[in-house]
């Protein structure tokens, strides 16, 4: 799936923030998993260099949940208040039971969102989704040029994406495009927005790459310059003025270039719950990189336990886990210390401030990453694409790379 798609832009703006709970267990403080993200498979026909899926995803491609297990998960989450359902992956359409999942989602009263690369979407399937009550299809697009699309995804999918966009429109679906932004397409923002308008897009999400999983491995090759991002934002604002409400454009700002971190997932265990292909239940997409954490699995104790009782979901709720400089920071409620995964991946300490914050003692790591991205030697290193072969290498423990990007404590 693409980056940041699930609600990080929309839900944070529109959903009423849950009561702050200061680390007290969820059953006392009414946190609710409003968002259920079902990462139904890690298999994917695309090999995007910026994918945030875990680099060791290959471990989780053989033990996917069954249709029945997914349907039970949907029911349990709905009882707990989940209302938006994201069906994602990998490429969800590689499973042949998405039709059944969609029907159940409709019955339960979810607003259901299929998040897809478009590969595998046929007339027959889209008709079945429409009949089954799927509410929305979000399509990832990569560039206006065939060359960049095919390069960054490592596949020949450019023509297909245009066909799928038309199919989505013809079936009366809202056209929601997600475009992950990186060095190779940031110079084409205006053309990308024009393409979106020509396709009749209702929503466009310009999601600057965030650096997790495969995109972290390829960070020096993907990161654009600050000036390019500023220019892209300026063009986006101009375009917004022009199109007004007809096409809503979300520009997801990259945190590396900000002074303060993002309030990741709107807070750990506040509104998001992710069930992965193999049934692990996570508070954020990349939480499994964190050390010494045992994440619950739907096959064992179910979703209610996972959300309310599991040590993993309670570990970073609220502010009790914080240390300096966050713990005494007057702004701590604004961002809750940022992203635990980013803190760990870059500093080796999951409880330290997100190094994106200029108050973090580790902020130099971000400055160095930005410098590295300007280093022509690093920037010209070959991109490591998200392929099963490369993932198997990570599973087997490609020490050099693992050490380079997962600073171990």
């Amino acid at each position, binding site marked *: 799936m693409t980056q940041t798609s699930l609600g990080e832009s929309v839900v944070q*703006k529109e*959903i*009423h923030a849950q009561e702050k709970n200061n680390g007290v267990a969820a059953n006392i403080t009414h946190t609710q998993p409003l968002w259920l993200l079902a990462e139904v498979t890690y298999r994917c026909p695309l090999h995007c260099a910026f994918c945030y899926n875990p680099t060791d995803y290959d471990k989780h491609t053989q033990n996917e949940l069954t249709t029945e297990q997914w349907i039970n998960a949907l029911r349990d989450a709905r009882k707990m208040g989940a209302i*938006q359902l*994201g069906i994602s992956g990998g490429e969800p359409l590689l499973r042949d039971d998405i039709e059944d999942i969609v029907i159940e989602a409709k019955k339960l009263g979810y*607003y259901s969102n299929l998040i897809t690369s478009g590969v595998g979407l046929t007339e027959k399937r889209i008709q079945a989704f429409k009949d089954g009550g799927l509410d*929305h299809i979000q399509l990832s697009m990569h560039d206006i040029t065939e060359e960049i699309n095919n390069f960054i995804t490592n596949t020949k999918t450019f023509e297909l994406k245009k066909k799928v966009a038309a199919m989505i429109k013809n079936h009366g679906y809202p056209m929601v495009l997600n475009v992950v932004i990186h060095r190779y397409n940031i110079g084409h923002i205006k053309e990308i927005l024009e393409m979106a308008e020509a396709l009749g897009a209702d929503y466009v999400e310009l999601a600057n790459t965030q650096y997790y999983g495969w995109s972290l491995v390829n960070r020096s090759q993907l990161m654009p310059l600050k000036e390019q991002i500023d220019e892209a934002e300026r063009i986006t604002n101009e375009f917004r003025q022009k199109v007004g409400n007809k096409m809503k454009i979300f520009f997801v700002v990259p945190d590396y270039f900000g002074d303060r971190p993002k309030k990741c997932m709107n807070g750990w265990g506040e509104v998001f719950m992710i069930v992965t292909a193999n049934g692990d239940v996570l508070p954020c997409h990349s939480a499994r990189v964190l050390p010494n954490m045992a994440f619950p699995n739907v096959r064992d104790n179910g979703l209610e336990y996972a959300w309310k009782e599991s040590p993993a979901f309670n570990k970073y709720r609220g502010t009790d886990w914080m240390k300096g400089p966050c713990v005494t920071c007057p702004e701590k409620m604004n961002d809750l210390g940022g992203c635990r995964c980013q803190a760990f991946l870059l500093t080796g300490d999951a409880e330290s401030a997100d190094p994106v914050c200029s108050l973090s003692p580790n902020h130099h790591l971000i400055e160095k990453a930005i410098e590295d991205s300007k280093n022509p030697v690093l920037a010209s290193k070959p991109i490591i694409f998200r392929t099963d072969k490369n993932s198997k290498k990570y599973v087997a423990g490609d020490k050099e790379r693992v050490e380079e990007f997962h600073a171990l404590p």
Partner: protein
Amino acid sequence: MENLQLSQTEEFKIEHSDVFAIALHHRFQWEEAQQSYVILFPEGMVKLHGGAGEVIKRVDGKSTVGDIVADLKAAFPEAVNIEADIIGMFEMASGKAWIRKI
């Protein structure tokens, strides 16, 4: 209404004869877990406080704004200046494109 700001850039003049429907790809429903009405749309949700929910509940693609004002006045006779609030809600919902003029 929570966490929402009126669009500053556009004016939406509401007439009593206007008829609105819920916008395409949006869904209005009661959420038991939230104990409130919500509007759902791709990857997002807006929670509507009591009064706002009462207004949008009556948006059905047939009733005019005038009908809805009269209906709400009858349903909540004790409410003061209710009409300005209702029109304000129509302006906001229309500005946010949650409802569309028919």
